[in-house]
């Protein structure tokens, strides 16, 4: 898990002006997104959170298309749908609720 600093000049672990680099949908990645959702307030922060949740939705979607792992499929499908709902909550300006929803998948 890493953060992609994007010019704010701040290097705090949880800085909502940083975009979380989403390379997988591991608990670590989800936890970092949840932490960022919890402190996001500005328009720009919500855009970054939406982009991260879009990425989670995208890669879980790709996984579901490709996988033959029946056991994991149900869990990933729930996360896929949860990421969709969290994404829409962020779009509605409700990042805290999105954080609560996403934390259910940790």
């Amino acid at each position: 898990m890493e953060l992609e600093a994007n010019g704010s000049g701040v290097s705090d672990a949880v800085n909502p002006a940083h975009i979380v680099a989403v390379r997988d949908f591991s608990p670590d990645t989800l936890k970092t997104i949840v932490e960022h959702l919890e402190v996001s307030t500005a328009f720009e922060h919500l855009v970054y959170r939406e982009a991260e949740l879009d990425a989670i939705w995208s890669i879980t979607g790709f996984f579901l298309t490709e996988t033959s792992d029946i056991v994991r499929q149900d869990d990933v499908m729930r996360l896929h749908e949860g990421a969709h709902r969290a994404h829409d909550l962020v779009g509605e300006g409700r990042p805290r609720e999105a954080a609560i929803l996403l934390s259910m998948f940790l």
Partner: protein
Amino acid sequence: MLSRDENELLTRTGTGTPAGEYFRRYWLPALLASEVPAPDSPPVRLRMLGEDLIAFRDTEGHVGLIDEFCPHRRASLFWGRNEECGLRCVYHGWKFDVNGACVDMPNEPPEYGFDNKVRTRAYPTQEYGGIIWTYMGPPEHVPELPKLEWARVPEDCRYISKRHQETNYLQAIEGGIDSSHSNFLHASVDAFRVTDDYVEKVKNSANLRAKYHLLDKSPRFTVKKTDYGLVIAVRRNADDDNYYWRLTQFLLPSHTMIPYQKGLSIHGHCWVPRDDETCWVWTVSWNPEAPLSEDEWKAIREETFVHAAVNPVTFRARRNKDNNYLIDRNQQRTTSMTGIHGFASQDQAVQESMGPIVDRTRERLGTSDTAIIAMRRLLLQEIRALEEKQEPFAAHHGDVYWVRSCSMVLKRDVPFDQGARELIAAEV
């Protein structure tokens, strides 16, 4: 991704739709001034925001933009005679001035005074920066013209083209602010493969874009909301101490400015809905410091960059989907990623291939799509605010458009907005 409802909200711009009402709060580019070149020159058809209109320049030089169809029997005023300060329908002789008033109705007895009671729909126009602009919204909310630099430079410092694109306006804007596509769609095969020859060519190049795109193919995205829209900042590693930044401007409702390198001309677009499935692509190149150079005119003539040759009446591009944009598969094998000539045609080919209104519920976005997400959210906010009776700020503050795009190399600890402060201020 967007929900189906959000996609509908953003892409439908006809009369009475929320996005349509939003666009109708701004002055919008309607025609090249050269389309109605002289008093009493022929009228021209124009479709905009789903409305069919006729433009004409009257005897005194004023430009009218009125409903295409005569209110009498709905005949097209395109056939009309442009004469003595009005456009006369050739069917029964009704005549309309630039304000839409019926000023003559020769087939009705004059004592009825019917002509004084008839009006047709008409929109105000202003000639500004080589373009006829129109305002199609309510008279009580007339906005200010945007103080865009390109509209205020001398005529020989600017080139404007207009093109008919067969997509909704939104996916065209998305292409305009999507920085990550240029490494692929607009790349040469050598650049994409990073051949030794290419590395040698660009490593000491004055073309900073080519040089730094080669060094860092994984840019980082930042957006910043402003009074006029968004600054979209894309950062690449330059060396151990510096970052290379490219700043794109998105200006409400649908203008963009492409990052430029100081000393060269600046390029920008405005995408105006023609209807829900087509749009007008306005493309502007300008140099605030000097007339366009011979090299810049050559790029325009040869369609290598942002301008494309069009049919002068329909404004449909010469390279279009009916002829597969004149793709050259041999060129694609050896020279360019697409085999399609010119950035404008390359953009148009991929955007039109997505269908007239892309289904955004089915897309798979990532963090490199941050700019697109930000632009959509901003437009959604603005459209919903107008539904709640909040007038758009930028529409009534033309001064906020006094900005430029830019590219620059900055020390790593300097925030981009601080480093860009002087570069993004317009100068004319």
